[in-house]
């Protein structure tokens, strides 16, 4: 059993708990266990693009320092911090690269961390769980563990921005990625390409200008539906919330009937690998994916 130092981030404990629980369950089944970093803090969600503000970089560096300490307690592990949320993935990867290149900045931040008897030696790598699945576990091993192939699911992969941007953080080719498609196909589902795969969902604008997000969600789901897909797979809790909640809102306001349930990739894996249903927490979704799964006779 390989163990990975795993950083959950804020949403995996609240709105996206089904994402975390299903990912941990399948990680054990694939003998690549995700073990949570003790005493972690928020990464800051969005990476600061300013060149003159170190303060906003302290939180992610502290996570990397704690992850480095954490791997001492793990078995058969690597110097890797693993994330599930794509925004955490991006923030941690960018800061990690900056700290490897700018030793003066690292020294200044370490001066702050030392107040808590912590220091970061910039010897960690940040990985998204999808990279572990593709590069360390392999899709053939995932295919072997499938007990309930997802026949009838026509899934469009929605990568969002932060899995593919910027170069420091991308987990796949930024203009033509395939990791999510390969994953859902190894689970027995059909993958449907949509050019909207990284058309931004509107992200944090949901707080102050919901219309921006509504427009984006209309464009994304409209295209995906026209290509015959019946579900979307995502890796970002904010994409998931925006797509799910806005479709529900449009359904109530306009009577729109065609909707796409949103799955986290780990939920699809958990279903296909025969994990207990409850861990997916489908009751948290605004558009209940269980209806589609029942129709396709994937859920009994």
């Amino acid at each position, binding site marked *: 059993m390989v163990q990975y130092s795993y950083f959950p981030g*804020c949403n995996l404990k609240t*709105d996206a708990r089904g994402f975390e629980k299903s990912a941990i369950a399948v990680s054990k089944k694939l003998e690549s266990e995700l073990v949570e970093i003790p005493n972690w803090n928020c990464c800051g*969600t969005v990476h600061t693009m300013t060149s003159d503000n170190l303060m906003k970089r302290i939180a992610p560096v502290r996570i990397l320092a704690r992850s480095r300490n954490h791997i001492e307690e793990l078995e058969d592990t690597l110097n890797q911090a693993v994330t599930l949320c794509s925004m955490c993935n991006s923030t941690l990867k960018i800061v990690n690269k900056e700290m490897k290149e700018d030793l003066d900045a690292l020294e200044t931040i370490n001066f702050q961390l030392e107040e808590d008897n912590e220091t970061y030696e910039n010897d960690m790598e940040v990985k998204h769980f999808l990279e572990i699945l593709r590069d360390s576990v392999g899709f053939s091993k995932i295919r072997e563990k499938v007990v309930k192939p997802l026949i009838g699911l026509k899934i469009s992969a929605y990568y969002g*921005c932060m899995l593919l941007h910027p170069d420091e953080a991308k987990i796949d080719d*930024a203009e033509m990625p395939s990791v999510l498609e390969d994953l859902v196909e190894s689970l027995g589902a059909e993958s449907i390409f949509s050019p909207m795969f990284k058309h931004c969902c509107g992200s*944090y604008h949901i*707080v102050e200008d919901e219309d*921006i997000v509504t427009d*984006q969600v209309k464009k994304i789901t409209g295209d995906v539906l026209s290509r015959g897909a019946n579900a979307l797979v995502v890796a970002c809790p904010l994409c998931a919330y925006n797509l799910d909640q806005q479709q529900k809102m449009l359904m109530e306001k306009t009577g729109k009937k065609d909707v796409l349930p949103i799955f986290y990739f780990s939920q699809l894996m958990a279903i296909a690998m025969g994990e207990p249903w409850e861990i997916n927490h489908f009751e948290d979704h605004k558009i209940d994916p269980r209806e589609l799964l029942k129709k396709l006779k994937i859920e009994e």
Partner: protein
Amino acid sequence: MSYEYIKFGPEERDFIAKIEEISGQNIYSCYQCGKCSAGCAFSSRMDKTVNQLIHFIQMGQKDRVLEANTHWVCSSCLTCSIRCPREIDVAALMEAVREYILREEPEKVKISELSKEVIEKLPNIALVGNFRKMTG
């Protein structure tokens, strides 16, 4: 064709220098190809497109830059940054304009005016992300 005389003095140069300092980018690397605006998911909502805003920064036209909504509509998806043929981190320029404003007026979004209902409904990833971008 109409012409407009613009002022280009120390004040304009200071503005350019500040944006370059915050973003770490060379504003004159941009040759106005417009690829950033063409691929931007939000161009239709911007009163000046991304390359237009950059042009106004290049000319030091601070008022025109600050009155635009471009940098506020930008959601930092970074599509422009990875596609720029001049390898400019375009999104960092948008961030620099936001920061330039927020360092003086730190509340583009007034957290105290958000309703309890909104705060309870939204996931923390949205709230933290928004406050990091819209408050100083």
